[in-house]
């Protein structure tokens, strides 16, 4: 394999490539979905393919192949070179890459249980336990979908600079969607968990997942809608992560920053309350879905501090944006699979902890909201973010009150970060996926935080 890849790379280099990389993958996936306890299908998949990216005449060419033979790889590499040469003449500012150390390595994440050693029947059994737990929790639970996937990738990355990295990636993922109905009111809640190995269900038994998500549904059935407008709030660990990811994270992705995001020209400036420190890390927390040893350009995984005590100190880079901004790549280049080129993607994006207890966060609020769990988030480059809130509670005189449903929060990232008054000492981490033209597993998290005010909308 190694000889084949390097001989193909040598060939495109001799034909005029200034840089080229081959990312070859063999993927093995198992997917299972249960609807009301019926197995929709057990899916087994094998995929083989390679992504070839070539830099020539200052532009990128990209091509893919589903065969790893020397002949097919050469054909695909030549096509990628031709693509770069086609785009090249119209490029005004040629693409340059920040230098990186050449690496030869073979790495694996520490996984306790390889899903390939677990029987399909055991996998189904665990999902049936989630299903049973949900229906058993409350009579008002009417519909339960449990989706499971384990995805294993054996990846080989070779570059014309001589790097050769063999890396195994593994994701075990569980997604539960539960709907309840009572007196004509319908409510639903989602729950997403994951690990790098099948230890997922050891760390949290299926019944616990079932209880957590079912409880959210029944609470919503009894909930009222919120008061709209600017309100003080405590943002829980589940939402703080999605806020770090959506509101701040995306505009810190250097390709988006350079494209005119709200952070353009703000590096080194104070953009948030001094209580705020946010990082994106490939190393920590270890169990995070964004934990990687090397990114898909062969840059070692590392911790990148984005905001330190309120000051914007870093952005997330690939080799190209790092060169453009005269800095070092941060190891954020990630691709969904061999069908896609790597993009700047987040890993584990988290707020740093503070020193307040949860009660201390609540105690100064006379009326406001505790935003517990999210339903999704989205950001615009101008710094407008929205987060859908799946479950929330009123805060009345410093204590949790009635549950609230269908709240949504929105705001301007920088204004909201300025409004952070205090950070808690607890910490939560969410396993999630992010779409930026490609799907990517990542994590986000942090402590609960108190914000002076945030815009709440409700039906």
């Amino acid at each position, binding site marked *: 394999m190694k000889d084949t890849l390097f001989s193909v790379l040598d060939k495109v280099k001799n034909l005029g490539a200034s840089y080229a990389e081959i990312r070859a993958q063999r993927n093995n996936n198992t997917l299972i979905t249960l609807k009301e306890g*019926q197995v929709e299908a057990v899916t087994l998949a094998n995929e083989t*393919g390679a992504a070839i990216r070539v830099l020539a005449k200052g532009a990128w060419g990209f091509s893919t192949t*589903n065969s790893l033979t020397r002949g097919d790889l050469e054909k695909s590499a030549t096509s990628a070179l031709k693509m770069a040469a086609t785009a090249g003449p119209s490029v005004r500012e040629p693409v340059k890459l920040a230098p990186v150390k050449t690496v030869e390595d073979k790495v694996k994440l520490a996984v306790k249980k390889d899903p390939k050693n677990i029987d399909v029947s055991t996998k189904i059994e665990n999902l049936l336990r989630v299903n049973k737990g949900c229906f058993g929790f409350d009579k008002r639970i009417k*519909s339960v979908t449990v989706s499971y*996937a384990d995805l294993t990738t054996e990846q080989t990355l070779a570059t014309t600079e001589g790097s050769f990295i063999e890396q195994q990636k593994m994701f075990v993922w569980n997604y539960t969607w539960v709907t309840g109905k009572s007196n004509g009111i319908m409510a639903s809640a989602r729950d997403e968990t994951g690990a790098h190995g099948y230890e997922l269900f050891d760390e949290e038994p299926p019944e616990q997942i079932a209880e957590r998500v079912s409880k959210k549904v029944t609470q919503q059935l009894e909930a009222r809608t919120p008061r709209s*407008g600017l309100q003080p709030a405590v943002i829980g660990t589940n939402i703080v992560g999605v806020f770090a990811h959506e509101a701040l994270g995306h505009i810190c992705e250097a390709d988006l920053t350079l494209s005119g995001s709200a952070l353009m020209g703000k590096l080194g400036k104070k953009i948030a309350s001094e209580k705020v420190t946010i990082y994106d890390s490939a190393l920590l927390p270890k169990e995070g879905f964004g934990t990687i040893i090397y990114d898909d350009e062969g840059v070692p995984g590392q911790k990148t501090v984005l905001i330190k005590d309120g000051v914007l100190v870093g952005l997330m880079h690939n080799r190209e944006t790092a060169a453009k901004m005269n800095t070092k790549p941060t190891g954020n280049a990630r691709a969904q699979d061999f069908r896609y080129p790597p993009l700047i993607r987040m890993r584990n994006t988290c707020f740093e902890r503070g020193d307040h207890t949860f009660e201390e966060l609540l105690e100064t609020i006379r009326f406001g909201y505790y935003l517990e769990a999210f339903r999704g988030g989205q950001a615009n480059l101008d710094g407008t973010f*929205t987060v859908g809130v799946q479950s929330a509670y009123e805060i009345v005189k410093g204590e949790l009150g009635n549950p609230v449903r269908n709240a*949504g929060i*929105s705001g301007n990232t920088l204004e909201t970060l300025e409004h952070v008054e205090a950070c808690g000492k607890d910490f939560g981490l969410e396993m999630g996926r992010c779409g930026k033209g490609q799907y990517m597993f990542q994590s986000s998290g942090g402590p609960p935080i108190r914000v002076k005010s945030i815009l709440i909308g409700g*039906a």
Partner: protein
Amino acid sequence: MDHTEFCRKAIDAAVRFGAREAETLVVSGHSVSVEIERGEIKTCTDVWDSGIGVRALIEGKVGFAYTNTLTDEGVKKTAEQAVKASRASLRDKNWKRLPEKTRYPVVKDTYDKRLVEFTPDEAVTLCQRMISSALEVDKRVLPAFGGTEVSVQETVCVNTNGVEGRNMGTSLGCGLGTMARSETQVSPMCYEFKASRLYKPEPEWVGKEAARLAVESINVGEAREGKFPILLDQFALQSIWMFTLIPSIRGDMVSRGRSIFRDRIGEGVADEGVSVYDDGTLQGGLNSGSTDMEGVPRQKTPLIERGILRGFLYDNYWARIEGAKSTGNASRGGGGLGLPPYGSVPAISPTNFQLVSGTASEEELLSEVGNGYYVRGVQGAHQSNPETGEFCVALAPAWRIEKGEITHAVKGVMIAGNAYEMMKKFSLLGKETRHAGMLIAPKAVVSELNVVTK
């Protein structure tokens, strides 16, 4: 390329391995695209992706396997895996049988040989034309992201009931996201796109429109809170419906008790001016074809006619459970993990989801609003609650309408409401329709929605 023979071989293999029923889907695609980043052409890609998915059934146990290795050996191995998956599964008590053999409609204007011959050089030229058209509008515009893509796709589905469905399709799309900056303000990212099944590129129109939206979003003025009439652009309506009406009109959601429309066929659910169809056979429609992704003919399905609920969208599985007929709305792949189009069992999706146009001109629409807002795009629609229809979204871009005229852009504004209640409040529909995602619709005036500001 015709992969029908490959599919026949795969189902034969699955039956030999022990499947009682089997089905094979091959999706084979080629796309050429050029990407724009920060006003420049940056990447040119040439992507081939072909694969096969085999569904195998043994006594109600459903197994599925897929691979992108389209060789005799790969196909055989995948058939064997599908049977293995079926044996490992549990009986689905709702399973009836695979679709039956039938005739397919002829759908026009979905394939253009001109696009099969399309070259990367042509894609570069289209991108250049799009960028210059955007910059001609105003120097403050940055064409931040976008590109041109041409794709050619063949879909073949064969099953043990004698079904042999096949689509050959092409498409060409140009899209651009722009931002504009003044000394003090930055616009939201504004998108425009145009896609067609035949060779009909309109890069100048896309560039100009994307730029115009960004420029017109810079000057932000006052927004007022309260209940206002809203003029919804097709993009805003598409975003809201995608996560409310569309899931609720799916047969699986109805069957599972997750749709507000269950047991309500024949009831009024929308203003009497509202008629909604899904038409998978629409001439030149972006999602049109002869067959769906499990070999059932595409069709035109009435969903809401003059405000009355008429039907739901089905694939084979859910139609048989409900004693209905599949409406040819089986799709594959995608989902929350971005699976390839041959990479999953069927799910129900709309094709070309049409809101029938009204008669109002642009002026009449604005005058109907009088004092309210014009909403082009919304953010956060995917956070809506499909079961209840409750949504809460930020507006970007959006403008204030005063005395029937657009006056200024607004920022930091949300609207919250209920998508099902909203259908009863469509007071006027425009006469011009356009594609926005899978929606084909006119602009629509909603008589009242709750506007929340800072």
